[in-house]
């Protein structure tokens, strides 16, 4: 076996999520008679990776959202790796932006960081935990009112 190019393209978590979900559907449709022990490794890795990605915000993305995000990012002049990290993690605080964008203090002013945060949180859908937290916040607010 020969490796021609060990880094031919970067994949976003959403692309891998879609690929694995399609693969799972395809294998379910083709029937259970082909589930011999040779496919056990594929089953394991597909299950675990799908489980991991399903807990991230990437689960609710779509090709249109990703395209919209990348066009919006053009004005901020970030490297490919930085844009990929923002897409995969959906940072909500300035501290997270500083981690993902190299030398952010020198390259971005505070307003630019705020604008970047706003673009990220408005275009990319929130993850499952954020939605759960939002529901919990609504519940706790109702409880605090009588007090």
């Amino acid at each position, binding site marked *: *076996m*020969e*490796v*021609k*190019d*060990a*880094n*031919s*393209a*970067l*994949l*976003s*978590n959403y*692309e*891998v999520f879609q*690929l*694995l979900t399609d*693969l799972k559907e395809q294998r379910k449709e083709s029937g259970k008679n*082909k589930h011999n022990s*040779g*496919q056990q*490794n*594929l089953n*394991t*890795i*597909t299950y*675990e*990776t799908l*489980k*991991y990605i399903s807990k*991230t915000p990437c689960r609710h993305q779509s090709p249109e959202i990703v395209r919209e995000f990348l066009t919006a990012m053009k004005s901020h002049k970030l490297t490919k*790796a930085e844009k990929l*990290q923002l897409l*995969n*993690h959906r940072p909500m*605080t300035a*501290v*997270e932006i*500083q*981690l*993902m964008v*190299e030398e952010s203090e020198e390259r971005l002013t505070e307003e630019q960081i705020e604008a970047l945060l706003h673009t990220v949180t408005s275009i990319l859908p929130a993850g499952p935990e954020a939605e759960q937290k939002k529901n919990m916040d609504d519940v706790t607010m109702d409880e605090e009112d009588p007090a």
Partner: protein
Amino acid sequence: MFVLVEMVDTVRIPPWQFERKLNDSIAEELNKKLANKVVYNVGLCICLFDITKLEDAYVFPGDGASHTKVHFRYVVFHPFLDEILIGKIKGCSPEGVHVSLGFFDDILIPPESLQQPAKFDEAEQVWVWEYETEEGAHDLYMDTGEEIRFRVVDESFVDTSPTGPSSAEATSSSEELPKKEAPYTLVGSISEPGLGLLSWWTSS
């Protein structure tokens, strides 16, 4: 954290699978060979992305199976240097904090890369960050099962291919099996603001 890797390999299809479509047989064979395996200096292979080129299939004398040279692309887990990842703490030991991503387990954060000052609590076998504020020191425990954000600072590949029979005399049957080394390990760091347990940095 995932990359596409272009590879070339010769795939052997046994005669009893000739009735199936060639593409399906080849995809199955490639997944059987590479899924959930580490390729040296490349990363952990996840699944086949696509087949880019199929060359002519040959049948060799003495073997009824067909051999096809396939050019394909495979999805591989290979985070780049300084990438931020989120994982779960698997456990703590004096060597550091062990983190797992579910599908990949061999991530270690050595004691020097923890938020300083940090100490190892022997009784509970857990690393603690002694966070100081004006009020005094807070002890922040790194418990198992907690989600942790870390930066990838180093990776190492170990060639685990079997060695030849030259060392057969040295290892006798009464000796224990040699320690299994992980073929691909990542070294992480959480010594920056924003890194560490997610619960440390969420603004409530």
